């Protein structure tokens, strides 16, 4: 069969405006980055991610493989769909590989204590240096202010917050955050992108913690307070909230899933921003964190996990009798 370029058969000579979304860039491919990569690739869009080293990139593919196999084990995906997803994801250590992306999302995963503001600014700067003038640059942060990240850009109007909630794959919603300088075209582009990958879009004006983080950390913190006072065990607090209010997970179980290190970082950022006591991490949260009990990922948080299954509680709750 002869092969020819398709452009020779165009009916109109005018150059068509590029309508579709062809390629998405991700900077940082930790847990959340991988979930976003999977989600985007599953919707037929190519993903180019940047990470620190070739070794790390190889690790990312091992982790992605494992995650997709887990989903196959739960009947959520077929082998051929997995192959198609993986074929659309590429990794690189070189920023120039995202130069032709339509949108680049910063999803760095900084587990070190303290704010990641400067690191994220650096990412924004490096991305802008290689991409087209109309490429949207987004950040997955929820507690840092998008305008502040955008301040390092020559074109701050293209910066948008795009916050995927944990879990990015099964969660039905994303928060699209408009900064001080963000223009309408960028917001609309990101809204369209989020809808393409099957999410309900909540667009909001920038505020630390958006809606999701601001509300969930307060619930987690109050659950810690309740646990600390000896009112009830972790599993009973969770069961009450889960069954009583129809939540998918109880607040402490949720904290273990998010990662206590992340919860503390969010709270510190919000405390710094609002100065309100309700955002000050509870001592139990800090104690567990210092012990290295960061939740599911480390095998221990409020609960003890073995092979991904919950097998016990870390904190035994003494019954408080007053005689």
């Amino acid at each position, binding site marked *: *069969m*002869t*092969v*020819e*370029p*398709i*452009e*020779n*058969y*165009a*009916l*109109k000579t005018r150059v*068509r405006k*590029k*309508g*579709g979304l*062809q390629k998405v860039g991700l900077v940082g491919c930790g847990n959340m980055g991988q979930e976003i990569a999977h989600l985007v690739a599953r919707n*037929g*869009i*190519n993903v180019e991610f940047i990470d620190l080293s070739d070794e790390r990139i190889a690790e990312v593919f091992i982790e992605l493989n494992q995650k997709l196999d887990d*989903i196959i084990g*739960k*009947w*959520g*995906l*077929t082998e051929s769909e997995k192959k198609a997803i993986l074929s*659309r994801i590429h990794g690189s250590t070189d920023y120039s590989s995202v130069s032709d992306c339509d949108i680049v999302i910063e999803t760095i995963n900084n587990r070190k204590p303290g704010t990641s503001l400067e690191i994220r600014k650096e990412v924004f700067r490096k991305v802008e240096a290689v991409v087209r003038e109309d490429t949207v640059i987004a950040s997955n942060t929820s507690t840092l202010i998008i305008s502040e990240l955008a301040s390092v850009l020559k074109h701050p109007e293209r910066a948008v917050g795009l916050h995927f909630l944990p879990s990015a794959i*099964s969660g039905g919603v994303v928060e699209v955050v408009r900064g001080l300088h963000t223009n309408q075209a960028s917001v609309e582009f990101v809204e369209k992108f989020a809808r393409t990958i099957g999410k309900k879009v909540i667009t909001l004006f920038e505020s630390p913690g958006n809606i999701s983080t601001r509300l969930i950390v307060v619930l987690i913190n109050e659950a810690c307070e309740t646990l600390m006072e000896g009112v009830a065990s972790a599993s009973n607090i969770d069961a009450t909230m889960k069954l009583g209010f129809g939540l998918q997970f109880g607040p402490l179980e949720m904290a273990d899933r998010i990662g206590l290190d992340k919860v503390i970082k969010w709270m510190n950022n919000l405390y710094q921003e609002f100065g309100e006591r309700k955002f000050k991490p509870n001592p139990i949260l800090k104690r567990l964190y210092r012990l290295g009990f960061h939740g599911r990922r480390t095998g221990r948080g409020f609960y003890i996990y073995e092979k991904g299954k919950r097998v016990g509680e870390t904190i035994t709750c003494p019954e408080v009798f007053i005689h």
Partner: protein
Amino acid sequence: MKVIVMNCGSSSIKYQLFDMEREQVLARGSVEKIGLHGSFLINRRNDGDEVKLEGEVYDHQQGIEYILGVLVSEKHGSLKSFDEIGAVGHRVVHGGEKFKESVLITGEVLDQIREVIDLAPLHNPPNLKGIEAMQEMLPDVPQVAVFDTAFHQTIPPHAYTYAIPYTLYKKYGIRRYGFHGTSHRYVSKQACEYLGCHFEGMKVITCHLGNGASMAAIRDGKSIDTSMGLTPVEGLIMGTRTGDLDLGVLTYIVQKEELTLNAANTLINKFSGMLGISGVSSDMRDIEQAAAEGNERAQLALEAYAYRIKKYIGAYSAALGGVNVLVFTGGIGENDVNVRANSCDGLEFLGIRIDPEKNREIKGGKKGLISAEDSAVKVVVMPTNEELVIAQDTMEIVGRMKNKTVGS
């Protein structure tokens, strides 16, 4: 007159160009991977000319632009100019309760197709995109929509109503719609013509056995029942779909395996059916090979597959009050000698008797009678041709429209 038939999927467009004077295909092809990396178009002309066009195709409109481009090109084309195109026929998957037959597409029709998007969220939106793009490219050419569900709109309420709270039918239109209507209509009519009998007065059961599979009970040329339902997952066992299933099974699995809605959907649509039982493949040829080599689950899958068809033949014979003609079509129905023999095995009491010799002979796109001389029921293999039906419907509707214009 020349007619283009379009079948737009989420990321592909299949097309055929018909010369309706001779009912001949002049060119056929497809655009694949629309909006994705590595998109291409393949065009095959009836004189053997084949070309693959590679490059970016961002959306359906651009895909259609290239299809038209190649059809009028000097090198690989089949048309001198677009003026030769008399009409365009579109396959539309779901017509809901609104469309009982093929229709000329107007603004109102488009609105009505949009209204039933919820019933076929994967199929109707790309069908619509194809129509809109064609309208923009060829604004003066009449366009016709042919629905997969339309032929089954004659099914009576007692056969289409599910025994769920009636308010849910009223609220969401949840009922049996059925699919493959174009194919059931075509092969039942063709089979009667082939047998030299009138469509009227005939009791016909059709088995469309392809990757998706469904059966229909047809009396006097009208569908009175079909095995697929609100969605194409009900009825026969298919390549990867369950077909009929105790609903309790699904809620039990969801609870035991802690499945999400999406996973439950994938489970019944992609991991079940012949693939699920055999563990070998969803392809009948692989399963038959494994069964021949002694794979017990493959053998079980084949038995279950034929048994389900046999059950429906019995059920539809009862629904019709007898049966005159049984038709096999679709990739498996047209080629699989064993499936046909096993589905009819033991149905002599209904007057169905297969001639093993004739059954072995009819395959590879051939039509023919496979029942024995003394079989009261005529069993026919009839290759389906949905594209031709779409082209014929399109011609007929456009013809009617022209007559009206002349008459007025």
